[in-house]
């Protein structure tokens, strides 16, 4: 292919990159501008003076509560999901029992179902055990709904583990618990990191469950919280921009450091589906 041909290909790829990245750049720009500048000036101009005040305004407006709720709910759900998924995948792939294939199939069906079809009964269940407007309902729901995808990513790793590992451990007199917690879990750390980061993206961005099960501000996370803020700052674009940036920043920072893990996790969570 000639020089012109390659130039054309790079041009196409560049256009796509611009389309993907530009709305986000525009968001960062207007989060640092005053309303006057946003409405009068070019939307693509750099801010004349960088207005960090926009961020201060929304932080003092109480976005911090939503932020910390997102952090701990995401973190706790990830920890429980990874533990339960690892335990289940361990017995499904490494232990000998008749129904293992059937049980695995059951978990994998969980990958396909539309969550909205389960929403009303879930709401009713939590209502009847007084877990509506209680973050426990959110943590266990996130855990349950992320278990199938987490298990699917872990499966590949567990299948490739050599049998000798267990044989050596058992012959040395290790108990099964010891085998799992001291040997299997530590060597699965890299794949656990991948699943953790996939879980983080799902939980951090989840909207329907939190919007349905939580009503008081003290337990809301960012996805629902930013809805309140946008309503509140209706015409103040700078504040809305700052709100959105705060809500997406942790994931973008994680991407900066762990982009390879994220790429690996996203591809392995899809292709086998």
């Amino acid at each position: 292919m000639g020089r012109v041909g390659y130039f054309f290909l790079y041009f196409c790829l560049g256009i796509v990159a611009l389309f993907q990245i530009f709305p986000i750049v525009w968001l960062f720009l207007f989060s640092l501008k005053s309303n006057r500048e946003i409405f009068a000036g070019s939307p693509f101009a750099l801010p004349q003076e960088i207005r960090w005040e926009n961020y201060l305004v929304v932080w003092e407006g109480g976005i911090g509560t939503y932020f910390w709720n997102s952090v701990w709910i995401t973190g706790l759900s990830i920890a429980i999901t990874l533990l339960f998924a690892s335990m289940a995948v361990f017995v499904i792939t490494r232990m000998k029992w008749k129904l293992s294939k059937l049980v695995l199939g059951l978990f994998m069906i969980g990958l396909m179902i539309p969550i909205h079809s389960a929403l009303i009964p879930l709401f009713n269940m939590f209502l009847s055990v007084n877990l509506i407007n209680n973050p426990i309902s959110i943590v266990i729901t996130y855990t349950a709904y992320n278990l199938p995808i987490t298990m699917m990513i872990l499966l590949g790793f567990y299948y490739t583990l050599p049998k000798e590992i267990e044989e050596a451990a058992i012959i040395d007199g290790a108990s099964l618990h010891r085998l799992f917690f001291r040997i299997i879990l530590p060597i699965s750390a890299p794949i656990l990191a991948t699943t953790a980061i996939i879980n983080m993206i799902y939980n951090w961005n989840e909207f329907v469950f939190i919007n349905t099960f939580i009503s008081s501000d003290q337990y809301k996370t960012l996805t629902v919280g930013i809805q309140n803020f946008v309503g509140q700052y209706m015409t103040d674009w700078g504040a809305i921009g700052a709100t959105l940036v705060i809500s997406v920043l942790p994931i973008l920072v994680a991407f900066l450091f762990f982009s390879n893990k994220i790429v690996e996790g996203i591809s392995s969570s899809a292709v086998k589906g």
Partner: protein
Amino acid sequence: MHKVMSNKWFITLYLLPALLLVGILIFIPLLLTGYYGLMRWDGIGAMQFIGLENYLNVLTDGKFWQSAGNSALLAVFSTLSLVVYLAVSMILASKIKGADLLRKIYLIPMLLSSVAIAQLWIKVYNPSNGMLNEILGWFGVQNPPLWLADPNIVLYSIFIPILWQYAGFYILIYYAALKGIPESMVEAAKIDGATPFQIATRIKLPLIMGVVKVTIVLAVVGSLKYFDLIYVMTGGGPNGASEVMASYMYKLAFGNYNFGYGSAVGFMLLIITLVVTVIIRKLTADKEEIQY
């Protein structure tokens, strides 16, 4: 050895937490949805059994079919857009410098929450200060449409951010599949005088067909489940023009407190999703899997 590895207590103990959570919070609710669909119920008071009335009403409910039609349209758009993603991936995988960085840049929108994406694109489409109309203004477009308020175009306006959100995801998958094709096969075709277009469509595409089929299922099923972005951007409006099955169900239950009828719609959503999945799998099933 064998005895240790089939310890029933251990298996039960380790399996139970995951099995209970998935059973109680996923499978039982799914069955209950079908059951609640048989009830007249406002979510607070007692349920009243009314047989198949809700389900029969769904079948003749114009609003349900409008939302199902919109979901189907989104599924068609999403499937067609796979061609674009595939083309971009083909370019990306053809010895492009910086391909790794580019595919990561493409992926960034996928990491954001649908709520943040919806809020951002509401601003992009803003009639007076939005980015889109500003850009169109450079090209001399005087009276751009009301992107989110015009019932004739709102669904297209909503599809653009969907395209934006998932482009990186599909490109990533295709790119990985294309990189898995042995170099020798492409070289052999080149020696035989195949053009780049022929190599793309006759050699590479058939080799990654398995992956393409998976992405078709993902695109269609994903579209049928679509909710967050539409709920935040338009709430299904104007006048139901962007309503999808999930948002209709949500509105019925948590907006109108019509939990019985909402459950019937939710159960239809489940059935439609499962049936469509099976149909696509059957249609795209291989007679013989290509090996390489």
